């Protein structure tokens, strides 16, 4: 017998003659305390994100590219990691061209092994889309993809995320249900609630632990 058989054998013997505990999942308990009126939902999300040092900005489908340029200019950043293969990537590139902005856009187009050093040490900011948000906890939902790989939202010190206001749900249960998560999850799914942080030294909160030092969420109100 191998370890698996021995472990399972012991566990099965221990349960002999018993019945499984029924699944009486209480949906109300994970949804009712976390419901928000339509006009309160975005405010709640922003409040929760800002409480953990996230920055949020209300904007529109027409104006967000300019907001990105402004945010980067204010920080003296002249290079942005953004996927040219996404609609928002193309939209930003177009805006940069129109404006004749000095911002250099680069894509995540090779496997990470091929450009680790550049990604880790010479990529000051990134921009990604999101799959939605959760008002209850102030969370962004990210499903990294071939266009927007996992590390895009983790390694650059500034992460800018685009969030469509219409895709903000009240709570995690509602979001998982609406997006049918049990039909199939990606290799990596993430909830992101603020920039990285730690309180490991004397309970003192410090931001910018190993991930982004800043998280800027552009909430697109008319999308």
């Amino acid at each position, binding site marked *: 017998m191998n370890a698996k058989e021995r472990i399972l054998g012991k566990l099965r013997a*221990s*349960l*002999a*003659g*018993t*019945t*499984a*505990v029924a699944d009486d999942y209480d949906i109300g308990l994970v949804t009712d305390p976390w419901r928000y009126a339509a006009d309160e939902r975005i405010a709640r999300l922003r409040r929760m994100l800002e409480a953990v040092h996230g920055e949020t900005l209300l904007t529109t489908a027409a104006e967000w590219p300019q907001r990105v340029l402004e945010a980067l200019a204010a920080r003296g950043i002249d290079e942005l990691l953004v996927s040219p293969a996404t609609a928002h990537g193309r939209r930003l590139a177009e805006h940069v061209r129109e404006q004749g902005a000095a911002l250099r856009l680069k894509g995540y187009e090779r496997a990470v092994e091929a450009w680790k050093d550049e990604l880790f040490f010479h990529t000051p900011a990134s921009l990604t889309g999101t799959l939605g948000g959760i008002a209850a906890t102030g969370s962004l939902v990210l499903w990294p993809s071939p266009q927007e790989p996992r590390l895009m939202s983790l390694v650059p010190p500034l992460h800018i995320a685009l969030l469509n206001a219409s895709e903000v749900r009240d709570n995690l249960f509602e979001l998982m249900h609406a997006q049918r998560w049990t039909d199939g999850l990606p290799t990596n799914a993430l909830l992101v609630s603020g920039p990285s942080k730690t309180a490991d030294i004397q309970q003192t909160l410090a931001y910018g632990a190993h991930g982004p030092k800043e998280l800027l969420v552009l909430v697109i109100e008319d999308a």
Partner: protein
Amino acid sequence: MSPLSPAPANATRVAPPLEAARRYPPKPADVYLFGTCVIDVFFPGAGMDAIHLLEREGIRVHFPQAQSCCGQPAYTSGYTDEAREVARAQLALFAGDWPVVIPSGSCAGMFRHHYFELFKDEPQTLKQVESLSARTFELAEFLLEVCKVRFEHTGAPVKLALHTSCSARREMNTHLHGRALLAQLAGVERVEHDHESECCGFGGSFSVRMPDISGAMVQDKTAALKGSGAAEVVSADCGCLLNINGCFEKQGDALRGEHLASFLLRRTASAGTGGAR
């Protein structure tokens, strides 16, 4: 409450349902008093004061002379068989219909909650346990919720701190009952002390098996009580008082805690019965 027919020993356990608020019977004419072993030996005055308080409310008190200990010391030390036999002896003494009033929250918790575990394999005994559990009240709870006392303070204004034993607090809500009784008394200001809900370090055999940890806890507790600005300390549990008072004495401090029953008897009149016995 535990069910009368226990699941098999290997069944996966689910936490018992949330306890509904306890429903209280009307005030009875007769009660049993279970005095507890600590009170019997070290604080008999507190036991007598509990009896007098009940009599002041017009209740006849019965004290079965064959009573001894609830079994808790052996139970928490892991000597379950010995605890069970001592528990069985008590069970037989309080078999009538009268409520059982106990001037100690931790012993009351033993009667009310832990006898189910002790007798889980004895369906016949469990019926008696069920009855005893339903009739068991901690003294402050009984005065407040069953007798519905209205006490009037007859002494000088005083600042006082209330220490509640951990099992009394967590198993019997004794802290709430004690606070409610004290809140009836004009001129009695109950002051909070630092880390009030924290254990005093007694824990029965814990205090002798782990003396240094227990000692650190009781030193913090006495410091908190002294730091509260209270002139008097009361508690509804004599185990804690044994510990706290012993520490005060060792430190050469004059402060001593007394049982809530003693404070109430000495410093109040019952508005319901018009005063002293």
